[in-house]
């Protein structure tokens, strides 16, 4: 068993590096001044991507065999699967429209997602009774596929925005675009900080009252924000600058808050340094590289097509299959728990997107912004709802 899960882990690494290499090949397609029809770099890129995808499928299957259940049952497994579905969706849309640039953006996002996932506990975990159902696998995999396809819409939307926003003056568009870029920087910072401190084996332990009981709380990063009424136990570790507010309950609330704030600050640092180096908005820096390559109308259509393909898949997986499972597990197909509600919100959001586009002519810029918003909702459901608003669903 141990061997198999080790193999599985290595396959995931391999897939990660293949995606990384493929990204560089897609990057090379930019150097071609012609708008389309430079095939070599793109062909190599997509081939390596497919190889990476197959490798990741290998990770998935071996882990399934090792754990005896489909590896989609905790945050690590679920999120890596989501990354895999994003790559799959990208491959599908690549073969419909053959836009090389899509790879240059889709793969790094998938890489970030997989790296992000690996920051969470990766050990194989047992299933509590409510999760022991085939409908769980069917539901999670289909929902995730739907979300992956919808995310490609975001990727195309982002390309549209970077290449089309008027960068000659500061506007709402440029500011929001910088915000999106900053958010990505914060995710990078989170990954760097988490893996950095865990490589250093950093720990600082506190004693603090949780629900009236003295409990040991362990930080894996320097505690700028300590637990309310906590006492530092580890010697030589940094004393917190401030304490988490009283109303933040739960054992890990202060730890999560600390990690969150550090990541935001780290993101600010990364973003700030980039701007100093580029001496202009990051969006303005990137634009000239894309401008010549991008056919805005085509990118807009890719973004829309991804929604058109992804919306039915998402509905089937995240709502219909979810309802069937919930009916079996909890005797009601719908229970208004936060995870369910956020799936419904996603559904409403994309329904609004489709109606706005179809009937009110929201194309191009507006449609691209909506795609960004939709991705925001998907990520919120994946991460914030699991880590912050915890519901019945036990990914945590």
């Amino acid at each position, binding site marked *: 068993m141990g061997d198999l899960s080790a193999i599985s882990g290595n396959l995931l690494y391999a897939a990660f590096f293949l995606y990384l290499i493929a990204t560089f090949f897609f990057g090379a397609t930019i150097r071609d001044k012609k708008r389309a029809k430079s095939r070599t770099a793109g062909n190599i890129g997509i081939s390596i991507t497919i190889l990476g995808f197959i490798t990741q499928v290998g990770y998935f299957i071996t882990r399934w065999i090792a754990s005896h259940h489909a590896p989609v049952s905790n945050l690590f497994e679920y999120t890596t699967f989501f990354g895999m579905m994003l790559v799959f969706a990208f491959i599908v849309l690549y073969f419909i429209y053959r836009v090389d640039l899509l790879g240059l953006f889709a793969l790094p996002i998938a890489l970030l997602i997989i790296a992000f996932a690996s920051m969470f506990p990766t050990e194989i975990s047992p299933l509590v009774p409510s999760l022991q159902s085939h409908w769980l696998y069917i539901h999670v995999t289909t929902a995730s596929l739907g979300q992956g396809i919808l995310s490609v819409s975001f990727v195309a939307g982002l390309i549209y925005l970077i290449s089309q926003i008027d960068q000659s003056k500061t506007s709402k568009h440029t500011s929001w675009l910088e915000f999106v870029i900053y958010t990505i920087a914060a995710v990078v910072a989170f990954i760097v900080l988490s893996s950095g401190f865990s490589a250093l084996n950093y720990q600082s332990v506190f004693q603090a009252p949780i629900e009236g009981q003295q409990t040991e709380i362990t930080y894996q990063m320097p505690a700028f924000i300590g637990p309310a009424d906590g006492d530092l136990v580890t010697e030589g570790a940094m004393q917190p600058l401030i304490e988490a507010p009283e109303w933040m309950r739960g054992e890990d609330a202060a730890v999560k808050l600390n990690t969150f704030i550090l990541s935001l600050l780290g993101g600010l640092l990364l973003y700030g340094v980039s701007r100093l180096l580029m001496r202009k908005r990051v969006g303005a820096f990137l634009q000239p590289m894309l401008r010549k390559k991008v056919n805005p109308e085509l990118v807009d259509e890719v973004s829309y097509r991804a929604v*058109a393909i992804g919306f039915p898949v998402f509905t089937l997986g995240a709502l219909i299959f979810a309802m069937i499972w919930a009916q079996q597990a909890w005797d009601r197909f719908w229970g208004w728990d936060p995870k369910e509600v956020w799936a419904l919100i996603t559904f409403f959001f994309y329904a609004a997107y489709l109606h706005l586009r179809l009937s009110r002519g929201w194309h191009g810029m507006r449609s691209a912004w909506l795609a960004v918003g939709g991705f925001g909702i998907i990520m919120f459901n994946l991460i914030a709802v699991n880590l912050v608003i915890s519901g019945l669903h036990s990914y945590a």
Partner: protein
Amino acid sequence: MNEITCECGHVNPEGTVLCEACGKPIEGNQHINGNEDKKLLNMRYDGSARRSQTYNRTIVDKVWNFFSSVKVGVWLIVLTLIASAVGTILPQEMYIPPNVDPASHYRDQYGLLGQIYYQLGFHNLFSSWWYMLLIAMIGISIVIASIDRFFPLYKTLKKQKPKRHELFMKKQRIFGVTEADQVDLELYKKNLKKRRFKIYEQDGHILAEKNRFARWGPYVNHIGLIIFLVGSLLRFVPAFYIDDFIWVREGETAMIPGTEGQYYIKNKDFILETYNEDDETDARFKEAIQKQGGPIPKTFQTNAVIYERTDEIIPGKEPELAELKDTQAKMNHPIKFDDFALYQASYQLNEFKEMTFKIHDKGNEDTNYGEFTVDLSDPKNEYTLDSGYRVEIDNYFPEYEMQEGAPVSVSKYPKNPAFVFTLYPPDSQEAETSFLGIGANVDASGENDYKIGLVNFDVRDVTGLTVKKDHTLPLIALGGAIFMIGVIQGMYWNHRRIWLQPKENGVWIAGHTNKNWYALRQEINKVISGTHIQEPRDQYEKKE
């Protein structure tokens, strides 16, 4: 009705924007779709006469127009979306602990935010009247918007003719003029057929069309949504929906609520299994189990027998039961019988079943003046012992707690039982009162001669099952299925039309699709290849 006769001879209904047959813009109606001064025609619903765009006089017209507007529809969806998001900020009332006062719970747990949340009713958002109203308005809007569009569009597409007015052609988004003598129309038609277009011809004008059915996708999916909503509404009708709950103790047989006395269940055994890192098959979870710190449940299961009552139901009469099935309820595997389903929903471990007490001298535990056993699900008022001692139960607290110095029971389940006993010794007139619970044995007067002590007890598990009958499920499933068919139909196929018009020295070509214009252009390029027809232009101008 003010019908409009077009120059092609076709008679159009009032409010038509583009002639149903030839597509000629009808004078005086172009403002309806905003076509004046525009280079391109707005092809929404093919310029058909929609009620909402034609009449706006009576109150009925106004209501109709309100609900048929997509702008309104999107607003309703967005409002529902925002409201739903707010509903997840704090837990809904159904997810807070059951025996607390919600008003104080929200205040104590979440401070001012909680108090505001509670007072605005967000703690019960999803059953609030205004949330239901939003959903109902979405429903109405879907129905009206769909009727308003479907019938005119259907008729127009049915009546369309291949021969189009020149203005119609020129003002299509995809349009091209070819000047050449040898246009290969046979090849053109062959290419079209190969790409599965249907071809209609009229005086040399060619209309190629495919996937018209995709246009009906939205209406199909809207019908699905409506069926789904109706199904959800039917849950308020008791005949369609029963939702009940039952606790059954091990060894007990109980009537299943909601079945009108028809069915009974016996709990043979309740099983709670947890993962065990030393177990061979669970060893792969070792790391996770150790990290968790506490036990991780593996199975919740009730082994049960379902009985059906065979005699006539007379109140007070012992039922005659016939075994229906010997089965088990597990999470994700409910017991099903007749129209009912029993779901493993809850449990209580180690509830007290019986407690045995003995009477002894206060100072000497080895004395014994007799024992008695209390059945905690049915305690008697008094127990008379063979030795002549008599014990009365003055008070029984199934789950006792001290609150403000006095014992109270917080539930009716014997999880932590306590008693106030009065003891009548045979040789004395004086009764002695004492309070007895787990870990508490208090002499009320301080002058008792005897003491009652616990010698033995028996516990058992209790299973909690939800009882469900749900006749709305088939309707809801049907709604879901129709919805899925509809979205796939509308999203995975596109309605495409290509018109070709013969000219003296060449041809005109125009194309229309309901979505994915880039893909349409690629397709047109494939059908015209080798025909000497020139690639048409996309006349759409981006305005941002």
